[in-house]
């Protein structure tokens, strides 16, 4: 890179950033947050909220940090008396018509108006007892309510629909203090990516109906994860309350999903809270069907695999991690097994203006990882092979009746299961964790390996599938040792040799060249 860099001083801290960087982004590099509302790094800046006014020495007026590029040698003050006073003024203006309904507002606790008023606002109102502006709550879409009274007219939502989703159904209507966010009366915010306006809204003006009054923000535990919904691999945060997943939100990754996720991914969390989970190993053999402890279950798995006289088939669901796929294949000596991942297909739904971001046709997060490890997406062939196989391992795959019948014809079936499936006639049901209960890695369609972290505890005795496979594999020969952590399980896999989970950071790392073959 030959980008020219520029050095400035921000609140006494020196920072060098590429030429053309805005003051607000340069300040971020210096570790200084310039309070702001309308600015968002994934949207064009209108500089209308006037919160980010900062002082540049020798400038006659404060300047908006969001649209002002830095110039070499500038001395910038974000926390000078003049800048603080300006922000105090803006906060006061924003509050005069803002209802103080924080106790019943979903945004409370993660509200930027609350945060900045708490930091720098005035303790008392000078507005007096004038009535506040009132507009009714409007239904904007399948999952979006507009609470106009809380709106600070930052216009992030309008700009998102105009410039990112490229479906301009929102507008600023009227003018002056009568202005509000309007929606085309014949339209609704049902664009596949429209839900992002709720995240973009810095206050509680655009709220999710699904999450409405469900939990207080401060009661939520937040966990970095990867959306399991498709091969895009959007970075998400899984929000839980009392170990129940209540919300999925985008987590910034400029290389993958910027600040956005699609509504399909956003909505698809209820399976994470299923109550009918398998929570102890079950073995069904000549001695009958019984719940066993892990050593007995592992021995059964190791023996079943060792005694297989004939072909081995692995049928994996779309949410299995590279660790689980890798170790299951190692257990069955993958080179001689037929292994496929079930990849449901859907319609591709692009976001509009962000290149290489879409809800993908292939609705399986780890297809690329599976392929790197030797699995295919040729589900039909694998299911057909299962009907005459000696051993079939079903790795949390959902099967149709016909597929289940084919699997049941195999000599023996080992079911790595989240929920039991009596149709399979499995000789062992091995309780496994889901991706929100374990640490693991998915590889997205662009070859980017990204890790997800556990968001809730595993039910009962459930283990990550990789651990079951690895422990059973270790029983197969002298001197084998199973990895003790997910990271060790990852490092031990040939395509990722030498990499640890920590090496992937929170935004992943590209480990393969070409993307997934369509």
């Amino acid at each position, binding site marked *: 890179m030959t980008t020219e860099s520029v050095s400035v001083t921000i609140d006494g801290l020196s920072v060098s950033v590429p030429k053309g960087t805005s003051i607000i982004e340069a300040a971020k590099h210096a570790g200084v947050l310039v309070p702001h509302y309308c600015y968002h790094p994934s949207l064009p800046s209108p500089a209308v909220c006037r919160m980010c006014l900062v002082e540049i020495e020798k400038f006659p007026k404060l300047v908006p940090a969001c649209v002002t590029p830095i110039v070499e040698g500038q001395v910038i003050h974000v926390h000078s008396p003049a800048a603080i006073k300006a922000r105090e003024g803006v906060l006061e203006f924003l509050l005069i018509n803002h209802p103080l309904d924080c106790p019943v507002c979903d945004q409370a606790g993660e509200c930027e108006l609350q945060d900045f008023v708490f930091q720098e606002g005035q303790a008392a109102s000078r507005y007096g007892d004038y009535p506040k502006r009132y507009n009714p709550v409007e239904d904007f879409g399948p999952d979006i309510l507009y609470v106009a009274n809380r709106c600070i007219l930052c216009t992030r939502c309008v700009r998102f629909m105009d410039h990112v989703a490229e*479906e*301009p*159904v*929102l*507008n*600023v*209507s*009227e*003018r002056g203090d009568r202005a509000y966010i*309007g*929606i*085309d*009366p*014949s*339209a609704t915010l049902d664009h596949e990516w429209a839900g992002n306006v709720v995240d973009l809204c810095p206050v509680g003006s655009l709220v999710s109906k699904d999450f409405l009054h469900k939990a207080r923000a401060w009661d939520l535990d937040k966990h970095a994860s990867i959306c399991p919904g498709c091969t895009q691999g959007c970075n998400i945060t899984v929000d839980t309350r009392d170990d129940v997943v209540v919300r999925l939100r985008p987590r910034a990754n400029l290389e993958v999903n910027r600040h956005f996720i699609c509504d399909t991914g956003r909505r698809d969390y209820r399976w994470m809270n299923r109550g009918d989970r398998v929570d102890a190993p079950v073995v069904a053999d000549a001695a009958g069907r019984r719940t066993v402890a892990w050593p007995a279950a592992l021995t059964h798995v190791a023996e079943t695999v060792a005694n297989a006289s004939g072909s081995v088939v692995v049928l994996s669901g779309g949410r299995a991690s590279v660790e689980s796929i890798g170790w299951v294949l190692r257990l069955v000596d993958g080179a001689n097994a037929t292994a496929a991942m079930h990849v449901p297909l859907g319609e591709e739904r692009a976001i509009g203006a962000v290149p290489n971001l879409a809800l993908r046709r292939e609705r399986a997060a780890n297809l690329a990882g599976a392929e790197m490890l030797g699995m295919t997406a040729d589900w039909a062939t694998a299911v057909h092979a299962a009907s005459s196989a000696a051993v079939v391992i079903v790795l949390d795959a959902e099967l149709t009746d016909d597929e289940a019948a084919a699997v049941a014809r195999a000599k023996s079936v080992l079911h790595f299961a989240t929920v039991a499936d009596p149709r399979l006639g499995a000789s062992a049901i091995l309780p496994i964790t889901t991706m929100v209960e374990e640490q693991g890695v998915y590889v997205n369609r662009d070859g980017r390996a990204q890790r997800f972290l556990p968001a809730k505890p595993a039910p009962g005795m459930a283990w990550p599938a990789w651990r079951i496979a690895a422990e059973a594999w270790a029983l197969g020969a002298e001197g084998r040792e199973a990895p003790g952590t997910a990271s060790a399980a990852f490092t031990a896999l040939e395509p990722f040799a030498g990499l640890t989970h920590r090496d992937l950071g929170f935004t992943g790392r590209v480990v393969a060249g070409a993307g997934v073959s369509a």
Partner: protein
Amino acid sequence: MSTHSTEPYRPVFTGETRDRLEALGTKYPTRQALLLPALWAIQEERGWVSPEAITEVAEFLQVTPAYVRGVVTFYTMYHTHPVGRHFIQVCTTSPCNICGAEGVVEAFLEHTGCLDLGATSPDGRFTVIEVECLGACAFVTPVLINDDFIESVTAESVPALLARYP
């Protein structure tokens, strides 16, 4: 008075109106620049800019209805509701205000039968509003009735003036 009609919407941009706008369009590098002229054409024809008209404008200019509505509601001269047959705008900004414009407004309300500013008279004949500076401050009180710009209206001259607008 224009009223909400149960008849299907009849497009405005046909025939001569359409040709006129298309010709005007050649004078701008973007089609969107025709938005204000197109809205004027709608209002001249129909008296107000209805939701259906917004959709027609949007289709004509290849923008969304939401976009058009954002623009319509910005400019105060476009009516988003039906108004009286004669639309009366009385300037009451400071220069006129200090010379008695509020008395002229009262005279208009009284002699038109409009119960309030912005309300239409029961016979559908008039709507009266106060307007911010009409830019004729030496001719107190300037009044716009439809497109007629009338200078130096006094409370006393209101009845005779209204008689010209049956």
